[in-house]
């Protein structure tokens, strides 16, 4: 391991040594170390489950380590509390926002440090302070606005402001770009660079290599709870980082075409007919009357239609309506058969398969065994004689899927909860690919899945496509949409603002549509 920081006389902003954090039998951090100098942007990278978030939660006082030493600005702070961490200027912005939606931006930022005058809240001063902070940092938000009215990107800025308001000089950001569009990501980078130039220290948890290369000065790579490498961004390459992350050679491919047989151009593969037809679909959500506001599209056999867009623009509602969870207006048909009034089960029997966006909420019953999860949604096909579950067939099915999809550990009786994210997702994929289907809804098929499993899942999606299935792919990961889709639709404000063939799409082309700057009707928003 290189030690680029040790030459400096100034104490390190963050110096963690041999941190051990255990949860029951799971060793989340196994002698993990981290060195970050003052005034640098440091990327903490690794696959999902490598222990990045755990290590940062140890640093911010949420977890107490079982062993190891923590120093902040040269002071021993091993096992401190969150209150002490905040006091010392360490702030963490979590992946899931922790804001009160009914309160304003200013109220959220000052929450816990309210400005009072004679026992009364001084709202004006709170707003003034937050405005000043917002201007100084370039994190533009309207201090009087309610948080419930904010976009995801704005909410994130409020989270960062909250940390800074509490005096954070060391800012930890956990996967901050997961919910942002490309221009919003650029804005965030500008803000972070400004903070660095003012001498503040930033640790960025991420697993996206292009971000690491774009923003950070130094990099620590984690694998299986250990820190395996410390690198200078200027001296390394994405391939080298990827190798350190997974512990073996990884081939980086810029975009799709991978796996597609050159003898089989898309134009031949995609039939003239349509398998999935959606006409003028309107869907309401609990918070918005027109979450999906009139979407129409068709997907041909052997085609993947990818939906790009910032999360929260109606993608989830569209999927819910297609799957039958949510009432909708309009028409949905598979191969000419109208699905509009069918139940979830009937849609499945009509040839709809569905990889849901949240496997922990819908895709799996975490306390059920792997074998039972592998029949979820098809339990009526695994019975004999009066509704009795056909155990021998359930076990045979499990044995086959576990070996076909390399689900590990190879134990069908384990509860799904006990498996890693990638293997849990393989259960979902295996089940949904094994049932008879014509149309597949694939929502965030590789979210929270490690690199090896991502490639495996992509290959399965491509082979389903090659077998003539129609696939609707929704992913927050633009790279994934670009890598897999034959056509790409951008969803904004509940509408498809543009639909492009893959060849015409790129992040630069799609970006303006994703932010709503281009509404697809020729008009440009201000």
């Amino acid at each position: 391991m290189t030690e680029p920081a040790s030459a400096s006389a100034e104490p390190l902003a963050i110096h963690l040594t041999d941190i051990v954090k255990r949860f029951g039998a799971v060793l989340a951090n196994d002698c993990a170390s981290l060195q970050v100098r003052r005034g640098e942007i440091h990327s903490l990278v690794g696959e999902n489950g490598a222990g990045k978030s755990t290590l940062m939660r140890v640093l911010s006082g949420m977890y107490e380590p079982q062993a190891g030493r923590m120093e902040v600005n040269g002071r021993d702070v091993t096992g401190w509390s969150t209150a002490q961490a905040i006091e010392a200027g360490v702030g963490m912005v979590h992946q899931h926002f922790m804001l009160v939606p009914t309160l304003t931006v200013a109220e959220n930022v000052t929450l816990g440090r309210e400005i009072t005058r004679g026992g009364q809240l001084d709202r004006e001063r709170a707003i003034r302070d937050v405005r000043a902070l917002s201007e100084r940092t370039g994190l533009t938000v309207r201090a009087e606005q309610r948080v419930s009215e904010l976009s995801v990107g704005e909410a994130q800025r409020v989270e960062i402001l909250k940390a800074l308001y509490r005096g954070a000089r060391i800012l930890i950001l956990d996967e901050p770009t997961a919910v942002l569009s490309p221009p919003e990501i650029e804005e965030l980078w500008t803000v972070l660079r400004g903070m660095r130039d003012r001498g503040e220290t930033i640790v960025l948890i991420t697993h996206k290599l292009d971000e690491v290369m774009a923003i950070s000065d130094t990099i620590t790579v984690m694998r299986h709870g250990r820190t395996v490498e410390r690198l200078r961004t200027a001296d390394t390459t994405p391939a080298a980082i990827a190798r350190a992350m997974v512990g073996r050679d990884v081939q980086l491919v810029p975009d799709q075409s991978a796996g597609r047989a050159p003898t089989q151009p898309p134009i031949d593969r995609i039939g003239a007919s349509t398998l999935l037809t959606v006409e003028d679909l309107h869907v309401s959500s609990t918070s918005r009357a027109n979450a999906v506001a009139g979407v129409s599209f068709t997907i041909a056999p052997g085609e993947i239609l990818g939906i790009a867009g910032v999360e929260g623009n109606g993608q989830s509602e569209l999927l819910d309506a297609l799957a039958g969870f949510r009432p909708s207006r309009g028409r949905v048909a598979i191969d000419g058969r109208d699905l509009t009034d069918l139940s979830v089960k009937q849609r499945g029997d009509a040839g709809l398969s569905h990889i849901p966006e949240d496997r922990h909420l819908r895709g799996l019953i975490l306390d059920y065994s792997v074998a039972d999860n592998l029949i979820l949604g098809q339990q009526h096909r695994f019975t004999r004689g009066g509704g009795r579950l056909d155990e021998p067939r359930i076990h045979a099915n499990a044995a086959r899927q576990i070996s076909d999809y390399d689900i590990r550990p190879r134990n069908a009786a384990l509860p799904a909860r006990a498996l890693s994210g990638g293997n849990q997702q393989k259960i979902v994929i295996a089940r949904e690919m094994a049932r008879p289907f014509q149309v597949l809804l694939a929502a965030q098929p590789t979210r929270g899945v490690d690199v090896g499993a991502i490639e495996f899942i992509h290959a399965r999606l491509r082979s389903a496509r090659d077998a003539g299935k129609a696939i609707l792919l929704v992913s927050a990961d633009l790279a994934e949409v670009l890598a897999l889709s034959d056509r790409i639709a951008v969803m904004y404000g509940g509408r498809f603002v543009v639909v492009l063939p893959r060849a015409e799409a790129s992040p630069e082309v799609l970006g303006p549509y994703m932010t709503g700057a281009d509404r697809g009707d020729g008009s440009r928003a201000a």
Partner: protein
Amino acid sequence: MVSIDKVEITPAPPSAKPTLAASGWMTRAQEAVLPPVVALLIAAVVGDVLILSYGQSPGTVYRLLIEGTWANAYGFGQVLYKTTTLTFTGLAVAIGLRAGLFNIGAEGQLAAGGFLAALVGLVLPHGLPALLTLPLYFVVAAIGGGVVGAVPGALKARFGAHEVITTIMLNFVVLALLNYFTAAHLAVAGTLHTNAIHSGMLSRLASFWNGFHGSAANLVLLIAVAVTIGAWWYLFRMRGGFELRAVGLQPEAAEYGGVNVGRVWITAMTLSGAIAGIGGLNFVLGYKGYYEDGFASGAGFMGIAVAIVGRSHPVGVLLAALLFATISQGGLAVNALVPQQIVDVLQAVVIIAVAASVPEVRRVLRTAAGRAAASLRTA
């Protein structure tokens, strides 16, 4: 934009065939059994302290408790009688918990089942063979309890009314109605019970073995064991149980799996009520031979404790019913040395200790808290 899109996957080492045996069977059994055992130990320690505070020797009191229950035939018969009712109400609550529902209405369901069975019994002619009447009583008691259970289920499925509120309230409604019908129309003058049923009474265990003489234990005990086995079979071997448990664990995932969640709620509450209702036969057909107002006397509520201590597993419920019946009967046996209320304290300690550790309870409470928070947020 760069994405990691192609990985050289090292071929997996040739591994053994997928394990299908329940390798975690032992651990899971330990996890299921440990909390009740620890709870019992805690209760025993608390009991020691209480008994000592009354100037008695714990050894003497516990010996008396055992002698009055398991060590003599009459006492054991009484334990078995109480076990029977508690098994039914415990199973009722357990099935609700498995579906994610907290059925507090077993008391009313039990009474309604017993009442309807007695009502039918009163109009049946003398001398019908038990082989004919027993299925009839069984079905009628199940209907009585099932209808009372189905109402909160339907209200939840249709309007989202919380079952805890509706089942509690329905207890008052049902018990008051039954009290009215009994007192105003059916009671023998000067009492709160109906006339005697003349057809299809079930034998006391004492008629098979004289040792049980005088105790109320009767053949309904066998029905309780059969229903326990049936409940286990349904929950863990039938598609209906698969879907019911799925709804209890993760309603969204069940919905995704094509399960009609509202229908499962109604089914689960109906089944739950029906099983509690069948419990009414223990008193009406097995013991007294008539319906008496207030016969349930808390057995429905005690079913909640039985289900929780029994970890919502039918076999666990049967064992927990035996435990609570023993403690309850033991209270009578030790009354001469220490106040009977000591056993109430012991029951409470067992319930609290187990409840603090049981996942079903934690999950139900957590979802309830989650829903409350969500409704606050949208408000």
